[in-house]
């Protein structure tokens, strides 16, 4: 549907990639760990190595949770827009097919939050 308007109604989107100074947005959520109230939003250069995202910003963002240190990254299940996907830690975000404003989630089988409560 088009917006009802008195005249031409066309405006640039507020969050197109060109506005992020070379970065693109990536959203990351950890399944079954609602201690973090929402998925996180990060601005990363598309050339950033996927493994560096996990070791750096993800460690900083999720590291408070006692489960984080116990993650076996070989067993982690990844999802992009809800569909299962695999990421190569040595390749960049762009090479892994990640675009501006993509949302990825990870599941850590066996780790289900504080006392198994999904917190």
């Amino acid at each position: 549907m088009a917006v009802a308007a008195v005249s031409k109604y066309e405006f640039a989107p507020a969050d197109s990639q060109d506005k992020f100074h070379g970065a693109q947005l990536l959203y990351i959520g950890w399944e079954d760990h609602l201690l973090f109230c929402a998925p996180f939003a990060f601005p990363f250069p598309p050339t950033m190595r996927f493994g560096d995202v996990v070791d750096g910003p993800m460690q900083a963002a999720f590291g408070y949770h006692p489960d984080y240190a116990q993650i076996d990254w070989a067993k982690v299940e990844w999802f992009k827009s809800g569909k299962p996907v695999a990421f190569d830690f040595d390749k960049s975000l762009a090479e892994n097919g990640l675009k501006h404003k993509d949302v990825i989630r990870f599941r850590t089988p066996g780790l289900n939050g504080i006392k198994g409560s999904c917190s």
Partner: protein
Amino acid sequence: MDMQVAKKKLGLKERYAVMTRGLDWQPSYQKMEDIYPYIAYEGIKIHDWDKWEDPFRLTMDAYWKYQAEKERKLYSVLDAYIQSNGHLNVTDARYLNTVKLFLSGISPLEYVAHRGFAHAGRQFPGPGPRVACLMQSLDEIRHAQTQIHAISNYNKYYNGMHDFHHAHDRVWFLSVPKSFFDDAITAGPFEFMVSIGFSFEYVLTNLLFVPFVSGAAYNGDMGTMTFGFSAQSDEARHMTLGLEVIKFILEQDPANVPIVQRWIDKWTWRGYRVLTLVAMMMDYMLPKRTMSWKEAWEVYFEENGGALFKDLARYGITMPKCAEQIALEKDHLSHQAWSTFYNYAAAANFHTWMPDEDEMAWLAAKYPNSFNKHYRPRYEFWREQAAKGNRFYNKTLPMLCQTCQIPMIFTEPGDPTKICYREVDYKGDKYHFCSDHCKEIFEHEPEKYVQAWLPVHQIYQGNCFPEGTDPTVEGFDPLAAVLKYYNVEHGRDNLDFDISEDKKNFAEWRGQATKNI
């Protein structure tokens, strides 16, 4: 001798006719569509503006007299409250965070409502709704003023209230109420009336004002309580106007029904999402609770709203479909919201805390299906960590919903363990939503919502630092720069209540008032 016959005084009805309808005229040398340019494009058809009934028949001169009297009373009560150091009689200093939330989240909306009703009134060709909108527009600016006056007293003693309007336009969570109202005032006059006049003022207002005003009464805040009572007669008039608007539009043309239904669906959901803030206020922020959010929703929406929609069924209007999802969320909403503010306590202009043991017992009793299972383990963990000096402050910015602008905190309907993710591709970009309802609202008018000023994205674009900030210098601290931009003083206005100046000062001042120290 000629007798001087006193001119017969006009009756109420005649007086109303002369002072409202009688002030209208038909233009002769300008076209109606040039004078009222926004009246047709939304697709609403009005055939006879005189069918508008104003149940109050209030005229401007009577309005003036009546409101002046009410405000004289309000200000004398406020004076007495202030002079007797009434602020020291609130239940405990945690209560003041409710006042901060109200002042920075709600009072600025009263002002925007004033502008919205002035605009809508200007656009309606019928004199009846025009006068009603004019009065509501004045009510709204009076409410903004009296709220600011009532709360300014607290600003002398407590933190976080010093720049509420600046905060309203900038602070991340305040974009939720702000964007809600911006969405309404940038719609056409009919949608504005359905969104604010009906959906907000009629359907949802009891869930906003009753909790705040009765919360004030229960917690010893006479100032806010008196404001609430003073505004009550206006609110009754606003509710009546809201209902009259809907009935009038629906009776004018059957083609209006589907348009109005869509607006009711949209605005009930939009309004409900804003009420997330009220839900957590009721269940967590009032030291003396009035009722739980769940109970309030059941009484004010499910019972009262249910009766209303039964009444509107004869026009072909049905209960908004979102009511089903809201019913599923009522066991979770306030807990998910409070967890969010506990997470981001470093970035807000008020304090948060973990409920104590008694409060957890109250929550478990009010929410037997959800609290102990889903939320207590999280809270106990946070409490243990805080006791060890490791209080959780989430410093990574959250993903937001494109429509309601709330962080993506809401869980799948029926599964409180899974965050609800929805997305849409539009013109080569992805857009994300917290729910099917926010997604549908976007899909209906994507051109509007792609412009959303999402605080998280704006921060990452570099638009939320004080002027002259260089984010490329070494050791740049983005959170510190953003707090400066918000005019929130770190360590004073934010963080946990336990370490706050508010808590310390209140204890000291109350001690002086009640003990010989």
